[in-house]
């Protein structure tokens, strides 16, 4: 008789059983999206010895704005191959939200397994301009604020509120990039002290280069399996015991940027605080955002935060959130962790947040 953890969200145990990601790079010149995804999809199936015929649903996350071509997500399906036809869906969001949709469908009980994949490239256009287009079209977008400038306003608000200092940002970056040295998929990894990092010039004050995410081309994929199927494919599945996502107003000026109420609510609904957390993989593209997220989730000192290096190690658009879930799951499969919290964000200054609690038995 298979053992399952108690569930806070849903009624059917669904586990993350496989994960693969591309070698995160600054610029993938040779391959198109299909050619990037194909090896990742092959790996995510190959890890557990299955094929596309073993999953009943495919869900992807991406945005056409990064590529500048309509329906790029339809073309990307060529990487999976969809004959015979099967149910498929797409979200114009990070793959973490595609995983959420797949999890909901798996709760219905008609299918037992799903493929989730996502892709995004920062190299095809000017990311700082592309990201401005997501802002409210009347007051903010016409100003073309780049994401680093908006993040800098948030960082300055933290400083003004007495909640953090520039040294705290440097400490986050120093630890994350050092952890990233153990992550073969990391794009930026180094062993430099916070003091050393503080000597850098500002990119946009109060943010220095170390507090910024790299520009990344990448993609990722996860396989979800329900019930016994999870144990059939994985010795110790990372079961999703809680998952929730919340959003705040699109008006950046109307928010208190020093806190993340949407993360707090999602964390509560996902049951983060009900038991000890071993590992947290937080999607904090800017160093100071990790501090806001850790507070919103109530993570204590005993939690290993971003052992992969997080989004500071590699920040493939539309994939960095799903990668947090994959990195968390990996640590449960290996027994390094029994309970992990994965987080994904979207929108300016942590506007929208998804929290996923994973547990092994």
């Amino acid at each position, binding site marked *: 008789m298979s053992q399952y953890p108690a569930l806070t969200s849903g009624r059917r145990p669904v586990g993350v059983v496989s994960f693969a990601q591309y070698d995160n790079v600054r610029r993938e010149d*040779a391959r*198109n999206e299909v050619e990037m995804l*194909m090896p990742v999809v092959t790996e995510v199936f190959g890890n557990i010895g299955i094929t596309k015929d073993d999953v009943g649903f495919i869900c992807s996350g991406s945005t056409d*704005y990064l590529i500048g071509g309509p329906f790029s997500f339809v073309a990307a399906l*060529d*990487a999976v*191959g*969809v*004959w015979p036809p099967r149910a498929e869906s797409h979200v114009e969001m990070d793959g973490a939200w595609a995983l959420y949709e797949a999890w909901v469908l798996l709760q219905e009980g008609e299918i037992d397994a799903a493929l989730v994949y996502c892709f995004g490239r920062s190299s095809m*256009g000017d990311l700082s301009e592309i990201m401005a287009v997501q802002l409210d079209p009347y007051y903010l977008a016409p100003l073309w604020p780049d994401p680093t400038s908006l993040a800098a306003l948030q960082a300055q608000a933290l400083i003004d509120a007495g909640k953090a200092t520039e040294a705290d940002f440097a400490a986050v970056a120093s630890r994350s990039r050092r952890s990233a040295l153990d992550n073969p998929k990391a794009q930026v990894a180094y062993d430099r002290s916070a003091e050393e990092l503080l000597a850098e010039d500002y990119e946009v004050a109060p943010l220095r280069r170390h507090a910024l995410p790299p520009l990344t081309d990448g993609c990722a994929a996860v396989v979800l399996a329900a019930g016994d199927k999870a144990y059939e494919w994985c010795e110790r599945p990372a079961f999703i015991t809680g998952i929730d996502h919340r959003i705040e107003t699109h008006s950046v000026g109307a928010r208190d940027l020093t806190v993340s109420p949407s993360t707090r609510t999602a964390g509560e609904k996902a049951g983060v605080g009900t038991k000890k957390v071993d590992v947290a993989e937080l999607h904090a593209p800017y160093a100071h955002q990790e501090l806001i997220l850790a507070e919103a989730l109530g993570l204590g000192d005993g939690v290993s935060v971003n052992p992969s290096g997080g989004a500071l190690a590699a920040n493939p658009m539309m994939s960095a959130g799903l990668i947090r879930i994959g990195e968390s799951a990996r640590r449960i499969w290996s027994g390094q962790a029994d309970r992990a919290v994965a987080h994904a964000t979207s929108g300016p200054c942590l506007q929208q947040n998804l929290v996923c609690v994973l547990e092994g038995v």
Partner: protein
Amino acid sequence: MSEREPVTMMDAATRLDYEFTAGVAMSKNLHGYEQGKFIGQRCPKCKKVYVPSRGSCPTDGLPTDEIVELPNTGTVTTYCVVNVPFAGQSIEIPYICGQILLDGANLSFMGLLQEIPIDEVRMGLRVEAVWVPPEELGPTLASVKYFRPNGEPDADYETYKEYL
């Protein structure tokens, strides 16, 4: 201040520029045009030949690694007579856009049809590619000037009915 007219409309011009990455497979196809050749790729499983290939077989999801050079001849599977002028039009109307299925290919593409009266164009028409002069060949489908009838009898409907 209260006497000002309310704002009912605003312009917010948006322009984003991109660099396109053709990819490994498509690059082979594009470099083929530089040499006046149609380069396709074959799926290892279903054996279909895509010209161009985007790197995978959309049916099977497998890399189409085998390079296939296709001949200069093909069949018009279907066509459209363009009578409507539109912005950026580079050819004098009326003209004919044909879906060309090259011999040995399993994917048709759009090509210009010339050297035939418009009312004689038909499904199954056998055609050949006319290339631009060698010094004008480049990594683009524009290296094919147009397609024209090659004088062979029409293709049997059965040979192209899967590609309409």
